[in-house]
């Protein structure tokens, strides 16, 4: 199995996860989407030095991972290409912001390091929440929920088709990589002289496949709306789920729980 085939397998696995049967899977897609958006906004609203306050926000992904039966390490593995980017965002903070915040065991911890870790934690929490939404809700249901929030259909179509096209593109990469290696058996990777034509061909082939797929959708009546996704009426359990999380987010945002617990022990 080449790397592209492995990636394709992982992509398909997301669909299988979204078809699961846990309690979280049964909540309305609209409510899950709203909770995720509010969660991400709350996480992002924390001050860049408020690392202690932010840590408690991990309760949301923690609880969801527990209830849905999804694996956190599985999530980290799937997001292994995104996480370095998240870390890279704040990488220069320790260099520019050198004011000492606290000295721990003789080692000065600067504000730069605190803000770096805050950005990293914010990124990890936001990405985990998005992963949890994707792994517990089908993409079409998410798009339908977005339409209910009056997000223009052009955006939901783009999101849906991008999701579908990514697997087509990876499939093409897999076929082309196999074809290349069968005629270049002793080479590791693809030689740089072939990169141009490889990418060009990949683009053309993916466009062809994407066009066929889009035609197949149009020929079966698709016009930008998600009639084929079952309506999930928002029930009492959904409202309870929403309210519990919103109250919890508000509490975590307004009270620094970690500091408050610490103050009970330290005078």
């Amino acid at each position, binding site marked *: 199995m080449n790397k592209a085939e492995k990636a394709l397998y992982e992509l398909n696995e997301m669909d299988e996860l979204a078809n699961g049967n846990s309690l979280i899977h049964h909540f309305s897609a609209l409510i899950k989407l709203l909770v995720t958006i509010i969660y991400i906004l709350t996480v992002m609203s924390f001050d860049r030095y408020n690392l202690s306050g932010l840590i408690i926000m991990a309760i949301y992904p923690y609880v969801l991972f527990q209830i849905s039966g999804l694996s956190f390490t599985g999530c980290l593995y799937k997001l292994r290409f995104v996480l370095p980017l998240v870390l890279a965002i704040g990488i220069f903070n320790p260099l520019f912001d050198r004011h000492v915040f606290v000295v721990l065991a003789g080692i000065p911890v600067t504000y730069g390091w605190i803000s770096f870790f805050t950005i990293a934690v914010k990124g990890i929490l936001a990405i985990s929440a998005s992963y949890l939404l994707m792994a517990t809700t089908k993409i079409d249901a998410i798009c339908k929920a977005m339409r209910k929030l009056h997000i223009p259909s052009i955006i939901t179509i783009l999101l849906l088709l991008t999701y579908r096209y990514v697997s087509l593109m990876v499939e093409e990469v897999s076929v082309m990589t196999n074809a290349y290696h069968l005629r270049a058996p002793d080479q590791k990777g693809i030689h740089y002289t072939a990169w141009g034509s490889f990418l060009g061909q990949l683009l053309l082939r993916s466009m062809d496949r994407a066009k066929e*797929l889009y035609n197949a959708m149009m020929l079966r*009546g698709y016009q930008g709306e998600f*009639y084929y996704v079952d309506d999930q009426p928002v029930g009492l359990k959904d409202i309870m789920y929403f309210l519990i999380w919103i109250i919890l987010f508000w509490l975590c945002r307004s009270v620094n729980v970690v500091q408050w617990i610490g103050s009970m022990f330290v005078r």
Partner: protein
Amino acid sequence: MIEFKEVSFQYSSERKVIDHVSFHIEKGESVGLIGANGAGKSTVMKLLLGLLEGEGEIRISDIPVNRKNLSAIRKICGFVLQNADDQMFMPTVYEDMIFGPRNYGLSKEETEKKIDEILRLLDIQDLKHRYNHKLSGGEKRMTAIATVLAMEPQILLMDEPTAALDPYNRRMVINIINKLPQTKIITSHDLDMILDTCDRVILLGNGKIVADGKCQDILSNQKLLEENRLELPLSFMYQKEKELL
């Protein structure tokens, strides 16, 4: 049922892919559209479905094929693509099958009933909740046909329905095609399959109709087929060899 009148089509400044083609297909007919690569078979299909716009007049069930009527035309015509992977874009067989009927306003209950009927007809009930990416080539082909049949089309267009199938699955698809009551247009290079499933054949060459007539007559005409870069179907070849012996 299907009226193709003086239809021409060309991509930009190239030669005409379809050049003043006219034919008429009656309700319930099974027509094989054959020809060498580049003869214009797929273009005819795409023109019928409104995926391409050409010159001339195309009418399906008296509805002219134009932008305004695309939705109605596509409800009447079901198209089975050559590559089943492109046809099946949902995660599971079930989700793929409900896609079309639900888009055309069928209720959940009606859709469920319909897809169970289709799965029974094709004898693939066990595939209903399977993931598309875990199906074999033959299973994918069968479910691709099922997704189109679930829309209850009056006309069935099939592009190379037996391509890349093993003999067992090929025979299964042929048997299924023969069971279907719809008007059918089938393009293929598998002339034995065309012989098994169609009453009439339209032979295309360089974008024009070279021959249009009974399947037996055209597919047994070795000279005509060879002039158009095709070969006699195997069954006729054996017959000919027997006669020679």
